[in-house]
Structure formats: structure tokens, C-alpha cells
């Protein structure tokens, strides 16, 4: 951007070139404006095409060995709930799991699971070992339904309201802070809405 300034060094001085000396500060002003804009954005928030839209149509079988009817679009709505995408091979899910247990047991939040590209034995062993906070769990062995939901990776957690609309999406592991400051207040709010 400033490379041209040195021609003035080696050639005769010229007033017409004086504007070149202004160039650095002008370029910097533009950069500064972008940086100021950047401060208003949170780069860790990924846009979701599904936010504030009805959840997609889907139907999943149960994990073989778990006693439920699987998980489908018809199970959404009625009460506000969480949909948690998890897998037994995912380390962050392991870290997140105790929080889900707490949410289900102590806060009475309905949590449905979407078990992503997992083997049935591994998934069942996981639930036995770490506890089972889920109401229904769909077994998405091929990961097709996760694509419908726009899942980037595991874990991800969606908040779905009474009408089956996705109102929030947490990309990555939930932390106690996220739960206390975002998830629980949101669930409370949705519960109060009619």
C-alpha cells in the first residue's frame, strides 16, 4: 500500500506526490473501521439457517437395546425441550454429559437425543455408564438427519419451543455458564409463553 512512497525518495521532490504520504493514514482509517465493526460481532456464533424456523421433518429408529420408540418430528412441541446431538466417540460429549443429567433430574428439562454415527453397543454402554438423561433418542447411524438439522459437529444442542420451532442452537460443548446464563433462562421464558 505504501510501496510507492519511495519513488519520491529517489526522484526530485514533487508536491503532487504529497498525497502519497497521506495514503498510509487513509488505509489505516479503513482498517480501523473494519476492526470497530469486528468488535460488534461474536465470531464463535455460527449462523444457523434453521434458527426461528420449524424443525425439519424426520423419523429415526431407537438405538437397538433402548426401550423407546425412537425419535421423530412428532415428538417435538407441546413442551419446550432440548435436542442434544451426541456420540459415544466424542470427548466433548463426555464432558458435557453430567450437565445434561443435572438438567434432566434437577431442572426437569425434557431432553431428546440424536445419537450421531454411533454403534449401538457403544451408545448403550455409554448411557449405562454415564446415566441416561434422555426422553427419546433417535439412532442416526448414517448422519442423514443431522444434516437436515444443519449439524456442524458433535456435540450440538438445540432449544425447541412449544410449537416445534428451533429458537437457539449451541455449537460445541455446553458449559455450566452457558446452561445458567442462556439455556435455563430461555427454557423458563418458553415455559411461561403460551
Amino acid at each position: 500500500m505504501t510501496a510507492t512512497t519511495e519513488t519520491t525518495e529517489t526522484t526530485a521532490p514533487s508536491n503532487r506526490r504529497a498525497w502519497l504520504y497521506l495514503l498510509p493514514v487513509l488505509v489505516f482509517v479503513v482498517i480501523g473501521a473494519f476492526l470497530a465493526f469486528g468488535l460488534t460481532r461474536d465470531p464463535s456464533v455460527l449462523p444457523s439457517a434453521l434458527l426461528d424456523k420449524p424443525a425439519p421433518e424426520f423419523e429415526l429408529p431407537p438405538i437397538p437395546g433402548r426401550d423407546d420408540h425412537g425419535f421423530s418430528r412428532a415428538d417435538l412441541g407441546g413442551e419446550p425441550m432440548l435436542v442434544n446431538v451426541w456420540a459415544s466417540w466424542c470427548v466433548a460429549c463426555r464432558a458435557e454429559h453430567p450437565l445434561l443429567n443435572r438438567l434432566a433430574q434437577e431442572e426437569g428439562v425434557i431432553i431428546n437425543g440424536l445419537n450421531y454415527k454411533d454403534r449401538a453397543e457403544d451408545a448403550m454402554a455409554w448411557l449405562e455408564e454415564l446415566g441416561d438423561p434422555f426422553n427419546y433418542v433417535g439412532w442416526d447411524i448414517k448422519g442423514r438427519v443431522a444434516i437436515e438439522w444443519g449439524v456442524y459437529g458433535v456435540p450440538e444442542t438445540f432449544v425447541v419451543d412449544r410449537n416445534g420451532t428451533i429458537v437457539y442452537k449451541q455449537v460445541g460443548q455446553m458449559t455450566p455458564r452457558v446452561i445458567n446464563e442462556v439455556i435455563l433462562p430461555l427454557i423458563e421464558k418458553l415455559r411461561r409463553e403460551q
Partner: protein
Amino acid sequence: MTIELGHFALVLAFAVAVVQGTLPLYGAARRDPVLTGIAPYAAVAQFLLVAFAFATLVQAYLVSDFSVRNVFENSHSSKPFFYKLAGTWGNHEGSLVLWVLILTLFGAGVAVFGRRLPPTFMARVLGMQGLISVGFLSFMLLTSNAFLRLDPAPADGRGLNPILQDPGLALHPPFLYLGYVGFSTAYSFAMAALLEGRVDPSWARWLRPWVLVAWLFLTFGIALGSWWAYYELGWGGWWFWDPVENSSFMPWLVGTALLHSAIVLEKRNALKSWTILLAILTFALSLLGTFLVRSGVLTSVHAFATDPARGVYILLLLLIAVGGSLALFAIRAPAMQGGSLFAPISREGALVLNNLLLSTATATVLLGTLYPLALEALTGAKISVGPPYFNATFVPLMIPLVLAIPIGTMLSWKRGDLPGVLSRLKLAVAASVLVAAAYLALFDWRGVLAAFGYALAAWVILGSLLELAGRIALFRVPLGRSWNRFKGLPRSALGMTTAHVGLGIFLIGVTATTSGQIERILVMKPGETVTLAGYEVTFEGVSERPGPNYIAERGTFSARRDGELVAEIHSERRFYPVEGQTTTEAGIDTTLWRDLYFVIGDKVGEEGGRTVRLYFNPLVVWLWGGLVVMAVGGFVSLSDRRLRVGAPTPAKIRTAPAEA
């Protein structure tokens, strides 16, 4: 109690900085020797106060004083001693104290070692340093104070991010800061010159040692960071064009350009305003880096926890410091015309080419780093710019740069003799062609790019050595005389050769790892053997091993060559219960010729199978070795006599060009 003393010292340091940033500048304008005389004392006092504050914080970490909020949030009593110490600067607040400590260290350094500087000039330099301190000390005291207490004191701390509990990363910030905070002196020298309205060769000579110190530490700091990323992140790569990496790399690139353009100014009294601009931009990019890392504007693998208020404050600092200096540049620099003329083919011409390429390269890195931000601002689209962009734009700019090095160092000032220089380089040309041909014939006949990379490395190493040989008239006069000439060479010449040879060694490492890395990702069961680049690699199994503050699953591999055990390699997955995080430690066996780099992953299946990643990285250690050699070159150059003595007493006389 001590932490309150530290806090108090920091507030006092702020007061001293206010004095240092105002009275000497005013005194310099009024030619008042009493006011300008304050500057050196203020600079030293400020350093001592900040050093004391830093020491109290270190002490709080070492004794695990969890009543200090910063210690509670970032430390834990079960941490090993070394990481308690390093934890001091492993977080936003603590690292800022280190930042300011280094800033004041350089200020005090100028005050102590710059006694030959004219007093008004020194007052202006230190005044500017004082103003930077005012900005950062107030930032620290207002938004990021590491010296606050918690009441009641918690029983134990939250721990340090496990990925930071590593010797490479513990030492990385101090070196990095010595580098890019060190460039603040270049900035202050440039501002002082603009305020005085005068730039001359002696200015360049005063500036040079400070730029060299900052540059060599930054080189070393970047090398450490890259090495850390290599072994700790477990991806087998050494540079990821991550925004945070870029923000330390850009000051390095411009700082390198500055080192070279200052030579032209010193020897030939040309490129005046350009050198001033580079000095400003080098520190501007350091500040930009600080902003990017701490404001959370860009996502990165190693950003600090962020807070919008901090971002706004640093942005303000950035706007004042950089905007102000560039505006002053626009007003004052046009008056600094003149300088000696030179032909395009000359040492000056070669250094201008160096500067053009390095600054263009910086611009491409800057563009790639900020482009996602700009695009989102303009269109709302979210994208990230990855290595393909940087490889396609940055690498082609570096090729002519490296090609020009041996030629440029042999050209004479003012008007060079290109055919003559090329004929002196015949040997280097022949050797590079030979290297390329040998690589194609012996290793990989399709590896044209790799062959080119090795040829380029041979060219710059041999070319630099030939230049040195020419200086000492090797084989043209008796060896004894050559040796005497060698001993008589200025250290700066030796430093230059060393740094350029270091670049060549670095290039060898880059070429080898980029073209020769072999990667296998697979599931291995205990006892299973696969071959990797001629090694039989056996996965021996996994055992549990307790660490000081973690529990590790340790995977053991053995590497054999022709049935003979070459190395036993351990890769660990460490679980840190305090932080609830898992880190992966790659198992690496390093020799001069190759690294075997193994990583164990998750369990797969019932029979103890594991996902494993096996890398064969040829000559990878040359890469960091080359960077260290470059830094050593800077150090050698720093020991040059002329930087310590030889500076004429220039206060009143405008120094004439050294030779016409």
C-alpha cells in the same frame, strides 16, 4: 499484603509514565534541559516500579495465593512449580503486566545505553515510550487488573488451560513480547525524528541496535511458537496461518524490511521517509496483533478469553497511536526529501527490492487475516481464509526475495555490476542446478517443486558463503591472511551472512517437510505392525500413568528398521481433572534427518484398537534450527563495534552522507 504493594507500584508507575510522556516532550519543544533531563530517570523509575509489581504477582502465583483473583482464575495448587511461574503470563491480565514490563525495560534500556544520544532527541524518544506506557498501564488498571483480591479467598484455584502447561508455550510469550514490544523503540525513534523534522544516517545507526534486539527475539519467539504448535497440537504441521500466528508474523516481516532499509539510510542517506514509515508500521502491526489476540474479533486456536470493553479500549489505543503517528508522518515526511541517487542495479536497488517484496508480502498476510472481517462487514457472509490463499500469494513473493539475496549482497553501492556479480556466483548457480538434478534423479523425478526448493536453499547458502569468501579473499591470498581478514571483518557482515545462511537452512527444512511428509491415519490394535517410510512401526499398547496434575493414557510404539529397534515412542492423552480437559501429547523421536511423530487417538472397537496418526517428517528440525541461526545472526550483528562507539556526537551538526 505484597499484592497491594504491587498494585500500588503499578499506579505509581502510571503516574511516572504520565510525567515521562508529557514534561520531556514539552521540554524538548521548549529546549528546556531541566525538563528533558527528567526523561531517563523517569524511564528507569518506571521500569523498577513495574518490575516490582510483576515480582509481587509472580510471588502470588508461586505461593498459590488464591485470594488474588487472577491467581485463583488461572492457577491451581497441584500445578508443578514451573507452570505456576509461567501461569503468571498465561492469561490476559498477567501477560499484560509482562507486556508493560518489557515496554519499560526497553525504555530503561534506551535511557541507560543511549547516553550518547542528544538530550532533546532522547527526551522525545522516552516521551513517546512514556505515552505508550500511559495507554497500556491505564488499560491494565481500568479493564484488566491482575492485582485484585477475592474475599473470602477460595480454597483452590481453577487451574491453567492444560494446553498451555508446556515448556515451549511457557517461554513463548516472553520472547514474543521482547520482540514485538521491543519494536516500540523503533516507533518512538521514528516519532522523535518526525517531531525533530530531521532524519539522517546517525539516526539510523541509533535505531539499529534496538530493531536488531527486537527482531532477534521475535524470530526466536516465533520459532518457539511454531515448535510448540508442532508438538502440542498434534497435527504434524508447524505453521497454520492462524490469525494469531499471522499477527506475530506481520511485525516480523515489516521489521525485517526495516532492518534492511535502515542500512540504506545509514550508509547512503536515502529512503528516509520510507524507513520512518516502516518503523511506525512495525509497531503498528504489533499493536494490531495485540488487538486481534485480545479483542476476540477473529477466531483462533489460541485467543485469550475476551471481553468487549477491552476490545474497545485497545482499539482506541490503536487508533490514537497508529492514526496519530501516520497523520504526523503525512504532515512531516514530505519535507524529508532528498538523499543520494542510485541506479536500479545497485546495493540500494537490491535493498529496495527486498523492501518491496517484504512489504507486499505483509500486505497479503494482512489482507488474508482481515478479509473475513471485511467481508462480513460488507456482505454479512462468514468465511475463513486458509492456507491455500497464503501459500498461493505469500510463497511466490518469497522466491524472488531469496533469489536476490546473494546478488544483492555482492552488488556495490550506487551502481552495481550485475554481470560481474553473476560471474562471481557461478559456483552457486552450478551447485543449485546440481542439487536440483540430484534430487530429481535420486529421490523423486516428479518432485519439481521440491527440487526447486532445495536448489533455492543451496543458492542462498552458497551465495552467502561466496560473498563472505570474497570479502576475505579466500584462496586468492594465503590462508593466514584470509584468516586475519576474517577476524577483521565487521560483526555486522558476519551477522548478515549467518542470518542468510540460517534462512537457507530454514528453507531446506520447509521444503523437506512440505514435500516429504508421509502421513498414515489408521486404526491399530495392540501388537499390530505397519510400515511407514521404511520403518516397521508396532503399536505396543496403552497403559495408565499418573502425572503431577493429570492422568495419562500412554500409548507405546516401537519403530524398527530392518528388524533393529530404532526408537520407542510414547504418545499420551492427558486428562486434567481440575480443568476437565484432555490434551494430546504427540510422541516424537527426533534426529537430524527426520522426526517420527506418532499420536494416539480414541478407542475403537472392543479389542483395544486405537485411531492413530503416524507421521514421518524429514529434516523438520532444520526448520527451527534455521530460525535459531537467523536469530544468532542478529545477535552477532548486534555486537558490531559501530553500534556501541563510532556514533559521532551529532547533536548540532547535520551529519553528511558517509560517502558520496
